[in-house]
């Protein structure tokens, strides 16, 4: 690195480039920073909108693309990576569900595109919020998702019929479902960031009291998800909580104590047989994939075969033989990565991982430059969420993680998951927009 710097001696003689994050770099006066959301977002109905139709369109376009437009302040790299993942995901879902030849009227294709469109709207909407307002919404989001989780558990007949042994969905009819646990992850991030990021004056790190409050609150959605039961979501929730607690700057000894307590709790859960036999089987079967290839290890085994048979370049999108034969269960949702492995091969898989890396590194950068501790924790929580969920998901398809039902962010088919992911990206964009100039 030092040699690189020294060889660039001339660079120092040039006019200094705008420092990223500075006002001149963003091309807007600092005074606009943190301005009224209502005005900027165009949600309001100020007198300036009461003009001719043409003028209104121009005004709107100006608002969207003009120098003060929030679109201009989006993290475009992040957005591009997300859109690339969504596009790839849509193609893979299309391939995975095209059992009788490719068909543009494939309902999964249509719904997948619709999901992404709705997700993008949600993302843009959230990104236009002043992220500090998210703090105010946090309790509402938490309450709403907890309510959803309770509804899911209620015996409401076809409305909450269990799927694969888990009561995770509220069926709205016409094929539309809500999966409250996806939003519960968001609510934990927001509430956790709210509590842990609210540092008392002159304090450099949160107190144990804050930690205790955070745990006490977050354990509610956690237990509700556990009751569904959706082990995968619980693991992701735990991981993102641990990530946020670590990031909050709490003393290391508390962090260690927490992890030790968690380990003891997990051991206790095993001892008391709190996990159902099939859950334990799913968690351990990946260690011995060939022991019972038609039982719990079947999905993982078939997925490994599909991915391994893809080789360097894969069999070509829409040309996977195992995909066409439907050998991997849930190949359009949880096992979408198996489709990628067989059809677009090692190179395609690396592209997906690289895109995920871009998303995660952008998010880490956003966390690092956030205006305040709340922003850092929201971004950090989202990093932990996506990282852990992607690792668990891809890991289970390649036989290094147990099979738990978590989707691959942006790629797997699923409305609620995509919406939640996009809202999270919107939150990241909102934090990004208000990043600290001085960070």
């Amino acid at each position, binding site marked *: 690195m030092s040699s690189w710097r020294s060889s660039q001696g001339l660079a120092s003689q040039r006019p200094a480039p705008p420092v990223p994050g500075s006002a001149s770099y963003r091309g807007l006066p600092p005074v606009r920073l943190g301005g009224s959301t209502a005005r900027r977002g165009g949600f309001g109905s100020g007198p300036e909108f009461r003009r001719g139709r043409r003028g209104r369109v121009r005004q709107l376009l100006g608002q969207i693309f003009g120098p003060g437009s929030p679109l201009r302040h989006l993290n475009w790299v992040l957005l591009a990576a997300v859109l690339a993942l969504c596009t790839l995901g849509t193609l893979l879902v299309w391939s995975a569900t095209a059992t009788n030849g490719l068909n543009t009227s494939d309902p999964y294709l249509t719904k997948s595109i619709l999901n992404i469109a709705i997700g993008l709207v949600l993302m843009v909407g959230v990104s236009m919020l002043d992220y500090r307002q998210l703090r105010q919404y946090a309790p509402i989001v938490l309450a709403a998702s907890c309510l959803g989780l309770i509804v899911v558990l209620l015996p409401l007949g076809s409305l909450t019929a269990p799927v694969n042994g888990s009561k995770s969905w509220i069926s709205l009819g016409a094929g539309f479902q809500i999966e409250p646990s996806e939003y519960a992850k968001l609510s934990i991030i927001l509430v956790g960031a709210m509590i842990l990021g609210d*540092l008392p004056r002159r304090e*450099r*790190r949160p107190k144990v009291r804050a930690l205790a409050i955070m745990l006490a609150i977050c354990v509610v959605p956690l237990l509700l998800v556990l009751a569904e039961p959706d082990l995968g979501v619980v693991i992701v929730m735990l991981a993102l909580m641990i*990530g946020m607690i*670590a*990031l*909050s*700057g*709490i003393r290391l000894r508390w962090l260690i104590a927490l992890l030790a307590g968690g380990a003891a709790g997990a051991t206790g859960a095993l001892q008391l047989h709190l996990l159902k036999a099939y859950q334990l089987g799913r968690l351990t079967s990946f260690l011995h994939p060939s022991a019972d*290839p*038609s039982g719990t290890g079947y999905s993982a085994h*078939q997925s*490994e*075969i*599909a*991915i*391994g*048979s*893809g*080789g*360097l370049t894969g069999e070509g999108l829409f040309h996977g*033989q*195992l995909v*066409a*034969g*439907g*050998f*991997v*269960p849930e190949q359009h949702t949880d096992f979408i990565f198996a489709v990628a*492995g067989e059809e677009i*091969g*090692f190179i395609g*898989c*690396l592209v997906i*991982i690289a895109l*995920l*890396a871009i998303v*995660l*590194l952008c998010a*880490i950068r956003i*966390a*690092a430059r*956030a205006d305040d*501790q709340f922003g*850092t924790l929201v971004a*950090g929580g989202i*990093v*932990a969420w996506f*990282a*852990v969920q*992607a*690792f668990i998901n*891809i*890991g289970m398809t*390649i*036989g*290094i993680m147990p099979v738990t039902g978590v989707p691959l962010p942006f790629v797997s088919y699923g409305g609620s998951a995509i919406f939640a992911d996009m809202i999270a990206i919107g939150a990241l964009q909102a934090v990004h927009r208000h990043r*600290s100039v001085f*960070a």
Partner: protein
Amino acid sequence: MIPASKRRLVSIALIVVGLLAVLGVRLYDLQIGSHAKYLTLASQDQVRDIVTPSVRGQILDDTGQVMVGHQSSLVVAVNMATLGQQADGGKAELARLARLLNISDKTLTESVRICTAGVQQPCWQGSPYQPIPVAQNVSQQVALQLMEDKSAFPGVSADIQPVTEYNQPLATAAAGLVGYLQPITPQELAALHQPVTGFTGEDLVGQAGLEGQYDSALRGTTGINEVATNAAGQVTSTIKDVKPVAGDNLVTSINGPLQIATENILANSVQAAHAANPGATSGAAVVMTTTGRIVAMASYPTYNPSVWTNGLSETEFKRLFGTRDGEPILERGTQGEYPPGSTFKVTTLTAGVKSGDSLNGSYDCPASTRVGGHTFMNDSGNQGQMSLHQALVVSCDTVFYNMGYRIWQHDNPKANTVTSPKAPVQFEQKVELQWGFGKGTGVDLPQESGGTIPTREWLYYYWKDNAHTGQNWCKYGRQNGSYIQQIEWDDCRYGNIWLPGQAIIASIGQGYVAVTPLQLADAYAALANGGTLYSPRIGQELVSPSGKVVQKITPPVMGHLPASKGTLAYIRSALQGVITSGTAAGTFRGFPLHQVCVAGKTGTAQVFGKNSTSVFASFAPCNNPKYVVVMMIPDSGFGADVSGPGVRQIWDAIYGLQGKKAALPGGKLPATPHITGAGTVVQTTPTVSASPSSTPTAGALPFVQLPADTAAGGKSDSGKPWGRAG
């Protein structure tokens, strides 16, 4: 951002990058490192082989009568290993199946229970892991019902399976010739490169007899329908479709009625001898043309080959392979080794003539000959001077003792004592080998014994194997002990030397000499046809199911007898005299020789501790011999008393003499039959296993495992415990 958070964020970034790197490394391992392995697994996942067994070719006699037929039939089988896992042990399912098959619940239950200590027949004697056939020739409708309602009948299969049908009593009379089918061994499977049909988890392959010899032609080509399937087991496309090709039919030269008659006559002869000498329990008879075609070959005791169907029970195994019942599994025509006795004198005569003895000379036939300190007796006392013709007619031993001794003296004396595996073959043994003895005839049966001609090489190994190991002569031999101990003491010291005493008893077909009935018949066929030694054949032609002759089988010429036409004619005329005025005159008293002129030779080979081996070798008609009939019955008595009458009855059966029905009227072989068609093929839609993890396996091995060498050539039925004449 607080400093603590900043540090932790760096850690989180590192963890994130680390996690993604782990995924990348593992992906590289899967997709690049183990790509080939997963490619194979993927193809196993998707590709199913639906194997349709081919209809096996039939084995027919010389008129086209079926000896062994193979029909494809829809067989319903029950896998009790699957049914047993059900809560009620499959009771309800069996009841449903019984209703569908229209048989009683009790019958079905009994046929699927496993035979164990306390269970009486009927029960399943095969492996409990093998699907148990419960109904054959079921209708397609029933089969389809079973296939379509798989969930109601787990573990029950309905599939085409070849069913072997034996034409009785011919198949039992020719059990040793037709052989049997047995589940393929993994080794054979690898050697054949044949797919496994997978129905009962076992594929049958000819293991002995003609079924074994002509297995590749009889089995045909198995049909493989290679299909791509999806995870549900539904066929999505056909990759390769090779239709099964039915096997060729084998037309043999065996004459069905004569085979049955020969077997019956042999059985009666053995049983009659058994009444007098309880040791007489087995024997063999061969009828062949002088051109090397086997027309009938009987072995006693025989067995019903259908015991092999559906696996051999332990009781049946013991009966077939045990000595208590005379080892019916042995085909004694080719696997029995017996001393030929005086029938062997024809070879000594040709050796004598070759070494200088004159056919016109006069030879002394004393009561005994003393050679090398031993006295060798003639069975019929001193008969004075005689021609070689007369020596054969009255079967004078001493003439041939002296001939053998002279030949021994002519041999290089050093060669008689050299102890080396590379020792030269001595003169008399060379002649005997040229008669086709001492090695297999090359008949088209997979297991054949070679008999014994005591060449110097053979003697070397025999002594090496038994002097200090094996029979351990040097340990048990006593100079002044019992007769056997004396022989052992002798053998220990001189067993590796070709002593004149051995040469002398070998010259009358005793001592170490042993031949198979087929070898003897083949030698006499050569004698009868003027000197051409054929490798005998049972198969006549292989005919494709469409009736096309795929292969004509003719007995190849193995060699020529070491004698001039004149010498052979001289011997033939002498053998004619044996019947009219010699040792077999009494046997053939009253035989219509004017209708069919039979010539032959008696043989009574003395075996220490047992009754003689009764041998009779004959051919007819005298002047233009067409057929050879040989019978050998060990531990029974004189050749003229036991085998002779049996052979006479076989001649009756061949030509239809003395009230018998002629098997070959006028001595003419029937014209080669025109054979078309194979067994009926019943076509049904094959099913595909729904479980993606199930691949066809080599299959359950039969309940009774055959020791590898039991049925092979290693076993012989030698009637001479010490290889000595008394």
